[in-house]
């Protein structure tokens, strides 16, 4: 039982129907991921790579019309292993060859109901989530204390107001908010961004969820605050043993916190594996996209000859008309004559290069 991962995502697809274009936008297009207990999985990728959407899908936070989700998300509860997306496939037509969503039932009501039913007892209780822009992600009409207490009475054994309040104060202290007794009665607008993010972390953890999904928790905060929030997350993980999925476009934050990394591009996982193996990109040992991402971290040795920071040329993938071949091919620097044909015509498989380290690239497929 210990061996089975806490969260196993198989063939997750999240499409959005665009009315104006009369086509599906394939935001997440067949994602497979595993998160083991106690791990911190960092998902990295540029905007539009589908990293946020895939995690929102796991929580069922994609609303039907225009969104639609299929695939399996196996969540390991104490006794049973449950599929969070069970039954959703019944309402969609899926292509037999490649599993793409072809069409959706006319009414998505049943789909939405099924999703809500699946998520009952999972959201908040088993999987908690924190978001970016904490000030808008906390309810401006309720006090911080209220929002934590609400989570505690709902999901834990502390049901009475007094107990729940004590517990909330305990969590406010855990996330190192100064004078929690006062902050308890504050509204979100009265707190700074960093403070608000701490309050949100306290809220999320207060339900004693086993998995914490952090959706760009440091984005939009000052650089110094970013580092402190990252440290706090790391500290809390070490203390509580909570499993974390960290979404970020910031390689720095990802490298600092996670022991596993998944790199996403165009709705697909391009590379995944232990943090060390992924980050070590010398001599073309990692995916060209990962390499390009790592080369665009603001650092002295990443400066180009003109003194600019390296960047990835080209446009973000068009997720409506997804190319036949490798999704990154049009922007790839390491594409060469010998494999060009493959790159443009056939999507590479996720090849295992070393223990747990997988790369989706033709450079590695043959090896």
């Amino acid at each position: 039982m210990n061996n089975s991962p806490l969260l196993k995502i198989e063939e997750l697809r999240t499409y959005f129907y665009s009315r104006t274009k009369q086509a599906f936008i394939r935001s997440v297009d067949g994602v497979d991921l595993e998160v083991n207990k106690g791990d911190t999985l960092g998902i990295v990728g540029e905007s539009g790579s589908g990293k946020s959407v895939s995690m929102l899908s796991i929580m069922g936070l994609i609303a039907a019309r225009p969104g639609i989700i299929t695939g399996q998300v196996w969540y390991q509860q104490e006794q049973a292993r449950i599929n969070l997306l069970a039954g959703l496939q019944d309402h969609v037509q899926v292509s037999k060859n490649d599993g793409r969503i072809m069409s959706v039932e006319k009414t998505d009501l049943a789909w939405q109901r099924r999703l809500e039913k699946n998520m009952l007892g999972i959201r908040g209780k088993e999987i908690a989530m924190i978001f970016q822009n904490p000030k808008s992600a906390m309810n401006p009409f309720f006090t911080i204390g209220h929002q934590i207490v609400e989570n505690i009475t709902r999901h834990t054994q502390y049901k009475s107001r007094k107990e729940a309040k004590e517990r909330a104060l305990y969590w406010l202290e855990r996330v190192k908010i100064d004078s929690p007794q006062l902050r308890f009665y504050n509204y979100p607008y009265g707190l700074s961004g960093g403070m608000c993010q701490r309050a949100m972390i306290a809220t999320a953890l207060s339900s004693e969820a086993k998995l914490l999904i952090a959706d760009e928790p440091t984005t939009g905060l000052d650089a110094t605050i970013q580092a402190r929030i990252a440290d706090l997350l790391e500290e809390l993980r070490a203390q509580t043993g909570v499993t974390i999925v960290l979404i970020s476009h910031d390689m720095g934050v990802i490298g600092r916190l996670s022991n596993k990394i998944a790199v996403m591009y165009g709705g697909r996982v391009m590379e995944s594996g232990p943090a060390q193996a992924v980050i070590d990109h010398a001599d073309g040992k990692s995916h060209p996209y990962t390499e390009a991402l790592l080369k665009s971290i603001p650092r002295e040795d990443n400066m180009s000859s003109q003194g600019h920071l390296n960047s990835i040329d080209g446009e973000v993938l068009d997720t409506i008309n997804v190319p036949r071949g490798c999704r990154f091919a049009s922007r790839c620097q390491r594409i060469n004559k010998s494999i060009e044909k493959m790159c443009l015509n056939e999507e590479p498989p996720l090849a295992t290069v070393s223990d747990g380290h997988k790369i989706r690239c033709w450079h590695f497929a043959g090896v």
Partner: protein
Amino acid sequence: MMVSRSAKPVVLYLTRELYVTFFLLIGVSLVVFAVLYSAPGDPLAAVFGGQVLSDAQREEMMRNLGISNTWYGQYWSWLVKLFNGDFGTSLRSGQPVLGEVTKLAKNTFYLTFGAMFFSLMIALPIAIYLAKRGTDRLGWVLMMFAYTTSAVPLFWSAYIVIYIYTRFFNTLPIGLATGESMNFTQMMLPVFMLGLGSGIISETVRFLRDEISRVFSEDYVRTARAKGVSVWKHALTEALIIPVSEMIASKIPFVIGGAIIVEQIFNWPGIGRMAWQAAQDRDYPVIMCITLVTALIVRLTSLLQKTLYVIVNPRASQETKTS
């Protein structure tokens, strides 16, 4: 310092707003007076049963009655009396105006707020349905219903309803003013008609639908969903309480306007019908008093709405405290 929800910012806010209300009412009375003064028709002639008076007769009568020649003189004497609690006497009935108006204002109050309530009872479910489900087949029907009720003019639909009512019940659904005993449906018919026909349903539906869908896509509502707690509890304040109170406050003048027509048609003894009558009789003191009372009702409603807003919105109460 501990920040608690004390009533203090609200009180502070209200006192300031009441000052504004005072000057606002003075302004309203001045404008209405100016309009009445420059309007054709002679109130003195009305007093004397519609005789045409010669200039000499008028001069003499005005001197006898102590009426000033100038408009500001006349306004001033009205205003001084007003501050002594005297709204003057009706030119038509000879009764003190204030007593009559307040007696009838009560009926208009029931009519307008009853109609408002009825409109909201129809508009709210439609708005929620449209916000949650979008314009599907039922949604389309509901929306068309809302638009149709608002598009049909009240003076026409009210007569149609009276016609239908008399066909099926063999009585007229009117006559509250005549003191006949009436059953509940008869009493409620004007309220329903005003609620349907005052034109606020479609606007309420549109406004609320947009507000609800906007609030439900707010980040904090998504957070509530991710927490597995009641989404409506989190969205309630911004998606319903604030927009509904705004809607009531901003639409009450329109409903009062519609009440004049409904009171006329259904013989409802309210100030709308009284104002209509007074306008025909050139009964200036009555018109002035009704205008002031109506302005006061409108103003108080919007004050109430703003107070509510300050109470439910912690941020707003913070702002009023510091400003």
